[in-house]
């Protein structure tokens, strides 16, 4: 493997009312800093891609903060994905036209899959990232959103029919734990889909990245891995050196 062939390593930035935060299992947000400054730092570090999620837009049913997104895009010479509060193909179009490559959708897929299909037809499958959030019960993997009894298999069929170009699996139990990705679910999703799969939720080391790729993921994403360090979880935005990633992925 060459330096330029390393799988994508994607920081996830969570926005809450315009501020950058970190959550554990998507709750108890802790303030991390200013998103525009963070994007600037990750741009200097030549991060592969960024995934920006506005948790307040989803929680409070607010539309995306287009002004903030425009400022973020003007600092980023790397691919950007945005998720949170997208209600229609038209919303998706507004975000893409600000300089984002992709929109991430999960609840829209459940509420109105036809809008996701429309967005895929208009802007191309590569512009639509479908998110699947799972949580573990004592005996099985459950979908976090949607109807009781909904299965992972059904959800993947829904994603396929909606024409998404990429799927992100997010294990909400592992979010912030740094114990590693949910490899069995990643293995199942990537064996059933032909589109690239991104693993998210639980990364604590570069070895976890390697495990996810070995399980079939095309790319890996993480939150606190890039932003909090040491026992006291001090905030420091970092991104692994390519040489270090090469030794992990290429070795």
């Amino acid at each position, binding site marked *: 493997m060459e330096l*330029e062939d390393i799988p*994508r390593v994607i920081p996830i930035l969570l926005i809450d009312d315009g501020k950058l935060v970190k959550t554990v299992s998507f709750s108890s947000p802790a303030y991390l800093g200013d998103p525009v400054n963070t994007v600037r730092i990750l741009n200097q570090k030549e991060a592969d891609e960024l995934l920006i999620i506005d948790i307040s837009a989803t929680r409070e049913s607010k539309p995306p903060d287009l002004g903030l997104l425009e400022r973020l*895009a003007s600092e980023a*010479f790397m*691919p950007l994905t945005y998720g949170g509060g997208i209600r229609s193909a038209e919303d998706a179009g507004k975000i893409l*036209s600000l300089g984002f490559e992709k929109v991430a959708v999960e609840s829209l897929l459940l509420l109105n899959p036809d809008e996701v299909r429309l967005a895929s037809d208009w802007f191309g499958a*590569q512009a639509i990232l479908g998110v699947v959030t799972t949580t573990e019960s004592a005996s099985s993997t459950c979908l976090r959103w949607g109807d009781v009894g909904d299965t992972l298999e059904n959800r993947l069929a829904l994603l396929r029919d909606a024409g998404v170009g990429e799927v992100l699996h997010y294990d909400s139990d592992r979010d912030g734990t740094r114990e590693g990705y949910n490899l069995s679910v990643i293995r199942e999703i990537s064996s059933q889909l032909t589109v*690239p*799969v991104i693993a998210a939720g639980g990364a604590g080391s570069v070895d976890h990245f390697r495990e996810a790729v070995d399980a079939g993921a095309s790319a890996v994403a993480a939150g606190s891995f890039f932003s909090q360090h040491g026992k006291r979880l001090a905030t420091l935005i970092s991104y692994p050196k390519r040489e270090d990633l090469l030794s992990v992925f290429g070795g």
Partner: protein
Amino acid sequence: MAIVGKSCAIIDYGMGNFKSVSNMIRHIGFPSQIITNPSNLDDFSHVILPGVGSFDRAMELLDKGGWIEALHSYHQLRGAHLLGICLGAQLLGRRSDEGKIDGLGFLDFETIELPKTLKLPVPHMRWNSVTETEDTPGWLSVPEHSRFYFSHSYFFRPKAAKTYFFTHYGVPFSSAVGTGNVVAFQFHPEKSHRFGKAALRSFLEWN
């Protein structure tokens, strides 16, 4: 008619990534303008056709906006330089497996689907490297170990158009093609950090 001065037009015909292209060119420091009207295309030394989405919808929008005729006229100008990016690049070819409508035909290539037998994830969505060929023109230069962001499901298959870069994804494919004053990049230079900046700067400094 001759082009006066150097500046770059970024065509906004309603499909996508013109804003990121404009951000990167501003960062390079080259005069540029997003244009939504084809009537003044001939004033620019360089023209970029961006785009993401479906081939036929893009051709329909180009047609509706009066861009097809304007681009044909621009293509004939002495000193004109035309770059297509991603879908905008595919539109410069003759046809695509993705659509039924003919492309602009400035470059002699077809756009085809990646063979399913390769069993690789599609879209090809990742950073990847490029290799120069014996046909790579002198004006096009990028740093050693450059990597570029790719995000596409269809690929150039050149006929008379020359391959300027090729890239591996299961099989080698042409990731930049060109002829004369027209060039097509399959990757996204506007989203490829300093590597993409170098590729775009090459284009803008091409005389």
